[in-house]
């Protein structure tokens, strides 16, 4: 049976409460779709709509082409397996008996589990690394063991759709990866998987597509790199994070970063940074973490600063590798400069290729902070850069000694520009 799970503009909730509105989502056989979002946003409620614990009050949820409401509970349980977040086991069933409970929807009223059921149970227990626990009473097992047994129980249902509700939350790292690898295998074997993830890295790594549930609705669903951006993380989770690519797995990696002190983390205002060759990397990171809306002036692809700006998800002007800051780029940087509360020029050498970044700052001198004096060691443009710097300083640009002083100066400029700290 093809286990396609379809939410068609479904509105889901509990008696008297709507939790998630107008959800449209399709999970095809062979696919793992991940749901992420803050606690209480309604991810689990979306799953519960399938098992009947939550109600579909608008639109429809369809399972293998039929309306969910047409399914009897037993028939539904033959199609959909669920692995819950927490498994309760305050009773002395053996692990084997516990897994065999998953056979319930396949057994007739007075039929008892037979040899085939037992064989299936042992097979799924082997795959979930729980076979060695088979004769243990479940009320003596750890949360992680129980969670893997719950997966085995769900697999004993022989479902074509598998719902995981933070199903790896109690597992240690080893078993977490093991279980998700198994889920990936099962999906590759034709199972449709809809999984709520707590861990964003795992979500990115194991999902074919990701959706964000926040503020009562499901956002756009797409490949993890498109969905998981630093901006989304800040908006939805209120977390500053660096979104990069994991060097080994090649999947999106999210590194939440602690704010560098509560006060600096509350900063707001727009800051434009002129850098290159790695001179701006530290500053970009500091300002981003401090809470500023940071933009990067034109940078060449392949440049270290470009990589940092990209990882942080900053607004920027991209240049091809070894390309020049052309007129179009100058206009783009100038536009950024106009709206910036502060502009920082790092200790970058200027030559013909990047001179445009300096020219774009004309008229914004009073909001400009220059790091380090401009000496001959940075002059590769035949004097033109020196002239531009001199005129900026003459018009009111501030020259500071180092990055730290520049961050302080930015703090003063953004405060003066009437952008008070956003508060808490």
């Amino acid at each position, binding site marked *: 049976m093809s286990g396609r799970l379809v939410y068609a503009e479904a509105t889901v909730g509990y008696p008297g409460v709507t939790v998630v509105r107008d959800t449209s989502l399709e999970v095809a056989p062979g696919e793992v779709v991940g749901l992420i979002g803050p606690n209480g946003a309604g991810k689990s409620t979306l799953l519960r709509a399938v098992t009947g614990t939550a109600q579909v009050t608008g639109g429809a949820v369809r399972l293998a082409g039929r309306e969910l409401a047409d399914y009897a509970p037993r028939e539904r349980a033959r199609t959909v397996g669920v692995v819950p977040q927490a498994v309760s086991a305050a*009773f002395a069933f053996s692990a084997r008996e516990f897994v065999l409970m998953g056979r319930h929807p396949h057994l007739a009223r007075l039929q008892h589990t037979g040899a085939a059921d037992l064989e299936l149970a042992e097979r799924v227990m082997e795959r979930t690394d729980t076979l060695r626990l088979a004769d243990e009473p479940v009320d003596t097992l750890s949360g992680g063991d129980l969670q893997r047994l719950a997966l085995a129980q769900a697999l004993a249902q022989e479902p074509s759709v598998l719902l995981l509700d933070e199903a790896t939350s109690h597992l240690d790292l080893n078993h977490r990866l093991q279980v998700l690898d198994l889920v990936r295998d099962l999906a590759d074997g034709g199972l449709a998987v809809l999984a709520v993830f707590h861990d964003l890295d795992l979500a990115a790594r194991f999902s074919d597509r990701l959706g964000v549930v926040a503020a009562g609705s499901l956002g756009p669903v797409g490949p993890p790199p498109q969905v998981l951006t630093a901006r989304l993380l800040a908006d939805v989770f209120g977390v500053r994070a660096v979104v990069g690519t994991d060097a080994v797995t090649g999947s999106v990696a999210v590194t939440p970063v602690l704010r560098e002190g509560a006060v600096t983390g509350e900063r707001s205002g727009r800051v434009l940074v002129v850098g290159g060759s790695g001179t701006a990397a530290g500053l970009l990171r500091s300002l981003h973490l401090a809470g500023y809306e940071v933009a990067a002036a034109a940078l060449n692809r392949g440049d270290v600063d470009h990589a940092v700006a990209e990882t942080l998800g900053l607004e920027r002007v991209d240049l091809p590798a070894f390309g020049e800051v052309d007129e179009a780029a100058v206009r783009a940087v100038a536009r950024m400069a106009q709206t910036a509360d502060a502009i920082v020029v790092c200790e970058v050498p200027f030559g013909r290729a990047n001179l445009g970044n300096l020219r774009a700052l004309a008229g914004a001198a009073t909001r400009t902070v220059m790091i380090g004096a401009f000496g001959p060691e940075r002059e590769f443009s035949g004097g033109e850069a020196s002239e531009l710097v001199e005129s900026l300083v003459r018009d009111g640009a501030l020259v500071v000694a180092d990055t730290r002083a520049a961050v302080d100066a930015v703090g003063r400029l953004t405060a003066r520009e009437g952008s008070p700290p956003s508060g808490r």
Partner: protein
Amino acid sequence: MTAPTRIRRATLIAVLLAALALAMLVAVGFGAVSVGPGEITGAVSRAITGEARAAGDAVIVDIRLPRVLLAALVGACLASAGVLYQALFRNPLADPYILGMSAGAGLGAVIALTATASVTALRFGVVPAGAFVGALLTIVLVVRLASLRGTLDVTSLLLAGVAISYALSALTSFVMVFFRESMASVVFWMMGGLTAASWPYVFMVTPMLAIGLAIPMTATRELNLMLLGEERAGELGVDVERFKQVLLGAGALLVAAAVAVSGLIGFVGLMTPHMVRLVIGPDHRMLLPASAIGGAIVMVLADLAARTVLAPVEIPVGIVTALIGAPFFIWLLVRGSGRR
């Protein structure tokens, strides 16, 4: 399941049945006049084959035997109901007496008794029916009340059961005061006794036990799944709402049967499933029949004690079960209600 399990299962049931038979034999034998096992089997076989009765047969066949059989039936009813409610509420402290169902059945029965005071013939149908309606309404009310705060937790359920129990007992007393002439017999009945035991009672309770036990016996898998919680049971294919209704109904039938013939007998439904579970584990396929037989044994022995300890004075059997059961209940509470 597997072949060895099936053999173990049959063996255990056989052992329990043998123990019940032994307990019944002892209970029939003891009394104001003691009779030996030979006399008992002789009297029973003569009664079955229709032979002429020997001298002591009347005591055995007309008095002791129905009383012991009724005790066994009532014990089986109460213990089975206890198993059902403990699974339904995932609560080891659930018991028809504590949940107020016995009081509800009692009120229903008392109303039926007084309403049919002049037409004794009707009583065998009307009293259990009244008890059934009373028990069912009570459990629905208690569950509603306990769920008012959101979740159906142990504390709410016990508090609601106690509160409703008090209210229903007050109503019962009111009915009794109003119909003063039947008060003495009703009071004695309310304390839980089997003194009025007779063959018609046995024939009335037997089908109620059979139905009340047969329904859940076809759904022991669902009963096991309910232990995982209602949500999980639903995920694994149990039609939870319907199943709960069926269980409440079957349980109410069992309680009504017990209360209609023996009044309010507490703690048998609480203790027996616990003791059985300790020995055979939580699987309802075994737990339910084993508890039914276990409840029968407990009740036969409790009634024997009630009759003989202070002979010739007879204590209502409800007092005996309460004297043993209340400390057991406290022990369960102290041990922590989270685990069974």
